[in-house]
């Protein structure tokens, strides 16, 4: 057993942290999110060229740095600390995950484009009716000669406004909620018949409603077996959950530390409010939640390499812990900031908003509790 980071992993962390400290301050972020194009392509280019981090988690043979899950964890935690909206999760973790595990035709070239910062991915899996059930799909990919014709509506596709490619789940068979019949396609966003309605999300990210109308896809667009891609989707989703947990640890750390700092400065009744025991104990409980979240993130990240069942159980367990921590730490950070906590001008509220969105990302706390229960305790009555 080993919980240490390699020298390369520590360097990766330092590289990302110092770049973001210099280039991704709260005011810079807020200004960029308030004007076209509502994200920072310059930052993305810097990730690719100046920092070279987009290849950290890809094999050296494909032009990457030979890392994997731990590298994603390290990067995501730093991105969380700065509330970075640029699509590392969608592109490297999710897009990269499908390309690595599904190995469709042209995957190597596409990974090269990811590393170079040219290809950007968003994950179009959710549908208006499906809530967190990833196999509840009305989107269909009808077989047409060697290829497919895609029709459907994907909901709240985070990062789609900046994406060049969409990873889309669709039915090639089976009923609306069946495990069988699920297929995955990589669709260029510029393909004919793809339309989007773009909008901001409450945490400063951007998302789209994505509509597919008779989008013609070649056979090479499919990732994984036809109608058999659900296990692949679950695997990549669990990888995305672990990465999101890491991002959450960065967010939670800022919430916790920011609250400690604020209460040391804020005076009431003639003393810093940090001298009040009731607030001290609240902050200790926030700190414990943070530490437990870090522990679960390590656990889930390490177990991504385990069997499907162990991996899934670990990811859901971590997501439950992180979901609870996001709520507790986020709400109490705002509470302890008093009125300032509910203003738009302080960073703390923006961390709270991201923490709140992470609670529901890839499934709510209840969703993952139910998934964990089924995996650990067997079927319910």
């Amino acid at each position, binding site marked *: 057993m080993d*919980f*240490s980071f390699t020298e390369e992993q520590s360097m990766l962390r330092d590289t990302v942290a110092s770049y973001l400290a210099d280039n991704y301050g709260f005011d810079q972020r807020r200004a960029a999110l308030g004007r076209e194009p509502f994200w920072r392509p310059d930052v993305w280019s810097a990730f690719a060229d100046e920092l070279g981090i987009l290849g950290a988690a890809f094999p050296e043979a494909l032009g990457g740095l030979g890392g994997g899950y731990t590298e994603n964890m390290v990067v995501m935690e730093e991105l969380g600390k700065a509330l970075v909206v640029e699509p590392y999760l969608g592109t490297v973790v999710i897009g990269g995950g499908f390309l690595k595990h599904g190995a469709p035709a042209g995957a190597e070239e596409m990974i090269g484009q990811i590393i170079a910062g040219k290809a950007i991915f968003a994950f179009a899996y959710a549908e208006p009716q499906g809530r967190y059930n990833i196999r509840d799909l009305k989107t269909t990919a009808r077989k047409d000669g060697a290829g497919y014709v895609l029709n459907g509506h994907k909901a709240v596709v985070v990062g789609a406004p900046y994406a060049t490619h969409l990873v889309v789940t669709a039915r090639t068979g089976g009923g609306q909620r069946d495990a069988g019949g699920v297929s995955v396609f990589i669709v260029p966003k510029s393909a004919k018949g793809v339309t989007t309605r773009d909008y901001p999300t409450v945490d400063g990210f951007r998302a789209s409603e994505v509509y597919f109308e008779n989008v013609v896809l070649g056979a090479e667009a499919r990732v994984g077996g036809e109608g058999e891609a659900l296990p692949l989707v679950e695997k990549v989703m669990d990888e995305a959950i672990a990465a999101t947990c890491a991002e959450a640890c960065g967010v939670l750390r800022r919430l916790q530390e920011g609250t400690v700092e604020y209460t040391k400065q804020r005076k009431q009744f003639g003393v810093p409010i940090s001298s009040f025991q009731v607030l*001290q104990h609240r*902050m200790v409980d926030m700190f414990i939640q943070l530490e437990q979240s870090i522990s679960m993130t390590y656990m889930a990240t390490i177990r991504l390499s385990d069997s499907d069942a162990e991996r899934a159980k670990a990811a859901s367990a971590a997501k439950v812990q992180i979901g609870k921590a996001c709520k507790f730490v986020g709400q109490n950070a705002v509470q302890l900031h008093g009125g300032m906590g509910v203003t738009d001008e302080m960073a703390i509220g923006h961390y709270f908003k991201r923490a709140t969105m992470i609670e529901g990302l890839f499934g709510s706390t209840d969703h993952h509790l139910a998934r964990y229960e089924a995996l650990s305790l067997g079927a319910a*009555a």
Partner: protein
Amino acid sequence: MNLDFSPEDNAFRLEVRTFIAENYPRALREKQERDETLSKEDYLSWHRILAQKGWAVPSWPVELGGTGWTPTQKYIWSEEQARADTIGILPFGVSMLAPVLYTFGTEEQKQRFLPGVRDGLVWWCQGYSEPGSGSDLASLKTRAERVTGDDGKEYYIVNGQKTWTTLGQHADWGFFLVRTDPDAKPQSGISFLLIDMKTPGISVRRITTLEGGHEVNDVFLDNVKVPVENRIFHENQGWTCAKALLAHERSGIAGVARSKRGLERLRQMASTELSDAGGALIEDAFFRRKVAELEIDLTALEFTELRTLAGESSGKGPGPESSILKIKGTEIQQRLQELALEAAGHYGAPFLGDAGHNSGIGPNHALGLAGDYFNGRKTSIYGGSNEIQRNIISKMVLGL
């Protein structure tokens, strides 16, 4: 980062498992299965077997009898003990007194006292708390005055009362915090004394706890004469020893492996107990959710402990972070006890004592669950209450 066990680790696990299976006293096992009260000999029998093997004091420095195990081996050790439901080694001598002795004691003191602790020959008890000094331990009043005896030697005359002395009824020796300078600031006038419990003037009085057990005691000290050479570290600097001891006390307190085993038992029990709907209790939507949440909480604690252990192996001793282990560890233990009692339903109520096993009144698995629950409320109170642990984190970690 990885969780891999090396071939050496796996061989070690097998060695430990085999040793326990072949050497754990059968009589003790049967008594545990019948949920009977254990005697002093019961407690010490297993300790002595481990001492013979050289495994009684894994965490001590190797030159004093420690095993030099890696954190992974220690983790395996605690897992295997829990898996086999062995009784724990009593902490008073091995993990509370000993670190103070080998950190602050003289060579002579170490040689005199450590072997008896290691080999399970001497039973130690703790004399810290007083009726008026619980969380505010430094306010303790038990007084030790220095005198020259008729033999020309130096002694302390100790007067006062200690309380909550766990298993003090069996103790041969005790380690005590006493006030040697009543005029100094509370923390500055305390000394750390080792006292032979057979010394005239000591009396031990039973305190019966909620579940009816005899676990804790009052200890009265009435003009107890203690040779000055029984003092550890400098006069009036016993608080330094006391604090070091408390950090060690906390680090072992998480009880992760035991809680994992407890959870396994709970799940077993909930698969035989029935829900109102007639299915297994574990299939009941409300009950299973509570079990799942507890299991997840325990997983988080396990990895927090592993991270702490990894930190210790890289040279950091148990720091104030060990307070997290104490808080979460005891919360989880209590939650387990709560759910077990809940799972027992009606048969949580009978109060049968040592005669309960196979009495035909309720299932054996329900025996003692209420007692465990009532007794278990102590865990968030002892070793520095969980509120005091929050004060420690607040001050030492968050800098508030």
